[in-house]
């Protein structure tokens, strides 16, 4: 077994040193990390943000930021000790024997060089071949990563390519040196599910052909389950569990891994609350006397805080750093949904907001006199009904216009057509002055909790802004009392009032944003991907909070998301959007169990799932979503549709009503 060992990392310890007043402060981002990767194998490094996954990868490549230093440990790649190599030699290893791809393909490519030039650079450095053969090799690499018409694409600039295409180019560059090991740092996090499926499949295929090993860094359990052979779970700079994927998903041994699995939202957990991990990852600037997870652990024992756990065997290839395993196998109660409330009553509430044929077109202006030469049809005729106390999920890939629908309903973008009827008024037609009356009832929560609060304002003022602006609480004292109450309601506590947003973590900030929206007691909240910037365990806390608020206050949500697992957990109804139009609508069970539109089918099949038995065969979607400025004639989806007929190109299909709650727009459904 040793001969097929490719990379062995032992006791790798890395510090990030920051200068603070009166000295230095060291963050131990990796503490005694050790793992092995065999040839041709995929090892997944799993963990939440701030656990030191990326720092581990950068330590392997010796690409740490200036303040980082490797304190101890060894990294042996095929017998060579990488940490002992001089920088000159190390440069040959980087991109040669070890390639790396990053999360953000947008920023990893130089915008002023063509794609071909950038790949050629990588080729020239790492291959001792004749210069003349470089262009041929570039085309060969582009073809290997599945880019159609590679010769032409090589001459294009990064901005002419879509996000998925750019990630492919990055992979091509990493492949230029024929690496033995490819380090992929969250390679698909910035991509849509259908594109993610394409990229993951590509990586698998390349691995099969070239026999390289992959170190996949991710926070997504689904991606791990679908692509990795083995995995290592990281927590607070340490690896806490290592196992075969099959063993792991059959029964995670570490309480942290267990909670992580349980906090993933699924349809089965609908009835109850999601498991949450209380607290947050401890700061890494102190030394730990015991288990790092002890204070957040649901199975904490007395000696956990004082004894540093070693490795225990939980199976033939399953090791765990937890004292529970010191005396044989502990028993975990099976993850049952805590049935806190009876299953959601499916009685349809009364309709609160009617959206009819909503259109939001942005003019494209050119020239000196700003002549309008066309329109970006971000939203092009959307019908929705929001019911009181229910959640409608709006699902689609990025760029399909789902956020614009949300903003159009709130009149943050003025609709160019259609109507939004609420409480007897058409919000799309009334002026800004009259709209203020309805502002109180319609609120919004944004995706990025870091950008959605003014960094120069105190939390108390942020939450109280609506109360003040709409004249709900005019007195300062009364307003402060109400703000304190709201902050308690979302679980932050009133002492937060006198602090600034940057003092809070992502999840806490999202709670503050929820408090701000709740302040004016709205009837409808548009949730624009409120959890997609958060870690799984934090996402579970926010979803629980949203669900509880709905139960207590009867708020309706328009939940805009691309994450199908959240939809299945939270939503009552689902609308699937493609290129500015809704292609399929129905209750959550109807749509997710039995998708009828080919796009919905493809979308659902591309979602990585943990449970191997539920896995469907992925429906391959070619290419990317067309531009909403020039949608294809006929059905917008037909150029990518695997089931397309010649008639599809002729006219946009009429709505087919399948049941009271269900409509599909596809000519194959009737």
């Amino acid at each position, binding site marked *: 077994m040793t001969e097929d060992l490719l990379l062995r990392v032992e006791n790798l310890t890395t510090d990030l040193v920051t200068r603070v007043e009166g000295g230095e402060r060291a963050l131990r981002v990796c503490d005694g990390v050790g793992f092995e990767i065999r040839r041709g194998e995929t090892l997944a490094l799993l963990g939440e943000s701030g656990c030191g996954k990326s720092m581990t990868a950068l330590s392997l490549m010796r690409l740490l930021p200036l303040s980082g230093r490797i304190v101890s440990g060894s990294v042996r790649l095929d017998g060579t000790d990488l940490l002992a190599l001089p920088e000159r030699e190390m440069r040959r290893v980087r991109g040669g024997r070890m390639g790396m791809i990053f999360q953000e393909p947008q920023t990893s490519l130089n915008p002023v060089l063509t794609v071909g030039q950038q790949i050629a650079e990588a080729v020239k450095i790492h291959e001792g071949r004749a210069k003349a053969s470089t262009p041929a090799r570039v085309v060969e690499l582009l073809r290997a990563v599945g880019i159609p018409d590679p010769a032409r694409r090589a001459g294009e600039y990064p901005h002419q390519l879509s996000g998925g295409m750019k990630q492919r180019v990055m992979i091509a560059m990493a492949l230029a040196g024929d690496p033995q090991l490819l380090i992929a740092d969250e390679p698909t996090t910035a991509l849509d599910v259908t594109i993610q499926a394409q990229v993951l499949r590509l990586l698998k295929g390349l691995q099969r052909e070239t026999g390289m090993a992959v170190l996949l860094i991710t926070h997504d359990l689904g991606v791990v389950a679908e692509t990795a052979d083995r995995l290592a779970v990281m927590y607070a700079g340490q690896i806490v569990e290592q196992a075969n994927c099959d063993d792991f998903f059959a029964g995670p041994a570490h309480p942290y891994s267990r909670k992580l699995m349980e906090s993933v939202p699924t349809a089965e957990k609908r009835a109850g609350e999601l498991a949450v991990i209380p607290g947050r990852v401890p700061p890494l600037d102190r030394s730990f006397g015991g288990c790092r997870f002890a204070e957040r652990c649901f199975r904490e024992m007395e000696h956990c805080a004082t004894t540093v756990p070693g490795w225990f065997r939980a199976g033939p290839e399953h090791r765990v750093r937890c004292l529970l395993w010191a005396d044989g196998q502990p028993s975990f109660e099976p993850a049952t949904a805590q049935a806190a409330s009876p299953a959601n009553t499916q009685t349809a509430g009364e309709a609160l907001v009617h959206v009819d044929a909503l259109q939001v077109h942005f003019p494209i202006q050119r020239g000196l006199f700003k002549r309008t030469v066309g329109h970006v049809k971000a939203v092009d005729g959307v019908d929705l009904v929001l019911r009181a106390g229910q959640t409608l999920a709006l699902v689609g890939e990025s760029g399909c216009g789902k956020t614009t629908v949300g903003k159009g309903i709130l009149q943050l973008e003025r609709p160019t057509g259609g109507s939004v009827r609420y409480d007897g008024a058409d919000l799309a037609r009334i002026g800004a002055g009259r709209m203020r009356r309805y502002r109180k009832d319609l609120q919004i929560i*944004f995706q990025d909790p870091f950008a959605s609060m003014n960094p120069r304002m105190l939390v108390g003022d942020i939450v109280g802004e609506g109360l003040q602006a709409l004249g709900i609480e005019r007195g300062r004292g009364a307003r402060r009392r109400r703000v304190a109450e709201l902050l308690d309601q979302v679980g932050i506590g009133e002492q937060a009032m006198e602090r600034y947003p940057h003092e809070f973590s992502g999840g806490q900030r999202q709670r503050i944003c929820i408090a701000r929206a709740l302040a004016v007691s709205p009837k409808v909240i548009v949730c624009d991907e409120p959890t997609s910037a958060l870690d799984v365990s934090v996402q579970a806390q926010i979803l629980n909070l949203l669900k509880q608020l709905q139960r207590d206050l009867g708020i309706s949500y328009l939940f805009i998301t691309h994450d199908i697992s959240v939809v299945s957990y939270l939503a009552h109804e689902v609308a699937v959007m493609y290129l500015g139009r809704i292609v399929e609508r129905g209750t959550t069970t109807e749509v997710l169990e039995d998708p009828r539109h080919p796009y919905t089918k493809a979308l659902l099949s591309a979602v990585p799932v943990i449970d191997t038995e539920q896995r469907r065969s992925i429906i391959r979607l070619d290419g990317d979503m067309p531009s909403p400025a020039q949608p294809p004639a006929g059905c917008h989806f037909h150029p990518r549709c695997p089931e397309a007929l010649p008639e599809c190109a002729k006219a946009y299909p009429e709505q087919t009503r399948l049941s009271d709650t269900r409509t599909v727009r596809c000519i194959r459904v009737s």
Partner: protein
Amino acid sequence: MPVILLTDALIFLLIAVAIGFGVYAARHEHLRGPWRSVGRSPVGIAALVVIAFYVAIGLLDSLHFHPRLDAPTPAEPVQQEAAPENGAPDPGPRYSTQVLSVLDLWLTPLRERDEKTFSAPFATHLFVKEAIEQPDGSTVRDYPRLTHGGAHLKNPANRTADIVLRTLLGLVKGLMAWTLILAALTWWLARRRGETFNDCARAIWSGRTQVPWRVGLITLALMTVLGFVAAELAVKYHILGTDKVGEDVFYQSLKSIRTGLVIGTLTTLVMLPAAIILGIMAGYFRGLTDDIIQYLYTTLSSIPGVLLIAAAILMLQVYMTNNAESFESLVERADLRLLFLCLILGITSWTGLCRLLRGESLKLRESDYVQAASALGVRHSTVIARHILPNVLHIVMITVVLDFSGLVLAEAVLSYVNIGVDPTMNSWGNMINSARLELAREPIVWWSLAAAFVFMFTLVLAANLFADVVRDAFDPRLRSLR
């Protein structure tokens, strides 16, 4: 009798604004933090000390009054200033139409001791030969003794020894004054930090304090000693020589400080409201508002600035000649011209900041928190005041400090082409302009130019260093690098 010139009033307004802003900044962590890091940078502190000297002189020069005519010596009008307030029962003292400043009063020895024409620094004799009548009645063409510079010396050959002696005396006085300041500061710090005097002094001297007091004190020592030595020597010599009409160049240089500071600061004060309001409006409201404001500033910035300034100054000159009776004194005329120059410089220079602010506001209006505010029904004016303005303030601050030195230099250039400040007003630009012709002389008259250069250079260098520190402290992109 106190006189408040237009620029004086604006300077006081500026000080009030600065104090108000200081109080505001002290209560907001996002502003206090960066300023604190400015205070902790050694370069920033050193530059600040130098600037403080300039500002002190400029402020002294901004307190104007009419001296009393029957005053026996001009050294006393300070006490008499309050006199006219209590409505005089007696015929009341008569006041000269001349306008003087507190600095003039302080520098009376320098101001009043004019020579005939050029004399070199520390000279005892005039720079040009004259016919001197000997006691015996014959005339000789020679360099005559100066009436004031070095007049106390019986034998001009003893000059070097006298200068060394006076320098040492100034050095000692300066060090004594500095020691007093040092002791007062240490005592104050020790009280604030709850340490003993000795511990605190040791902390300062080994550089262990958060604010680099040591650097500040060394700069202060340098400046105080220089100041005292200059004061000691200037009483007896023209330390930077005299100009064509025999005026002391050192005095001119000191008087020019106010002009430079006024141009550097009032111009920004004039342009700030326009730049901030229009820039934010253009970015926030977009559409037609944006178009109008953009056309306005693109048009303005495509007119050559010098042309606009020349036209405005010439128009003002015509106006002033036609309405000569409405100006009480030459000083007032010169002051109006200075103010006008500030205005016109402000009008030509607001476009840059406006453009920056428009871009930033365009970005901010799309930010989630502005969207959230509009979803909450917050009015536009409130959104601008509460969300946009505080988030562009760092840009304003960086621009103001960066522009300052550019404007000081611009004054010199404009005076050189005769469209700067009034020729009767002391300014570095005028000094350079008048020295220009003398550069062709043999032997060369270099001191006017050199003096203006040294004074301007010190101010601009200090301002630039300070601006760099401020920019580093406020630039969000650099903040993460530290």
